[in-house]
């Protein structure tokens, strides 16, 4: 189930990046094992979902990628750490997760998932998950950078 959810999320991010920012992306399940504590200045958006399954989705990227995507979404140049970059990325995460969960909810299992609003964190050395958390990660890449989507389902098993 985790793999199916991750595929839905990654497909959705690729579609939404194209629709919202005109950025062509591809994704792969072959993501590197990332350190538990992020390296360099990192931007993450955290969303939770509840329903028949509970879990957390994290969108992660470095600050340079965040700047480029934030400017593409806002359709204007923005200064470093401009708050509109982070508002845009927060909404990007909300939209791609919402679209993915809608597709899952309308599928045969109808798990009735509901999203919690996103929270954005920006900084160095962020510990998003504990070292022992079971994560599934997809890489979404485009010519300007790389985005990771992490999925953690409650219970920790590879559901």
């Amino acid at each position: 189930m985790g793999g199916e959810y991750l595929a839905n999320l990654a497909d959705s991010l690729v579609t939404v990046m194209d629709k919202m920012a005109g950025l062509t992306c591809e994704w792969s399940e072959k993501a590197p094992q990332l350190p538990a504590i992020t390296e360099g200045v990192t931007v993450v958006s955290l969303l939770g979902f509840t329903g028949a399954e509970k879990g957390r989705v994290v969108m992660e990227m470095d600050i340079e990628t965040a700047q480029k995507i934030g400017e593409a979404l806002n359709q204007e140049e923005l200064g470093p750490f401009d708050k509109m970059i982070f508002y845009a990325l927060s909404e990007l995460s909300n939209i791609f997760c919402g679209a993915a969960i809608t597709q899952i909810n309308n599928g045969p299992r109808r798990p009735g998932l509901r999203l919690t609003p996103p929270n954005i964190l920006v900084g160095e050395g962020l510990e998003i998950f504990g070292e022992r958390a079971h994560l599934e990660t997809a890489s979404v890449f485009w010519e300007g950078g790389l985005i990771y989507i992490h999925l953690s389902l409650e219970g920790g098993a590879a559901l």
Partner: protein
Amino acid sequence: MMAENQTQKRIMLVDDSPFIHKALSKALVPAGYEICGTFRNGLQAVEAYGNLLPDLLIMDITMPVMDGVQAAREITARYPGAKIAMLSAMGDEDILAEAKEAGALGFMTKPFANDELLAAVSDYLTK
């Protein structure tokens, strides 16, 4: 653009994301609509609605403090003629049914294309 003799329609926006306020304003204002207020949760919308009495309220569903469905329910209970359109990233059948039951005229999904948004807004305003 709006014809000169046409009254400018006033639209109230409720979404927890300032990015969405900006995106909607960039689409609606050049088309001749006035944004009469922007709010970031459903409770703020309930409290402000009576003072603003907009021609159309465009509201997100997933928001902190009070979600859009509950806010729509409270606003339509107090103002039965309120025109509310939901705009959400979530669009499954259960949510559509909840929004309709709460009194929403219609439902738009994010991300939106400006021409689709303007067509939907025009449609809701004539209902």
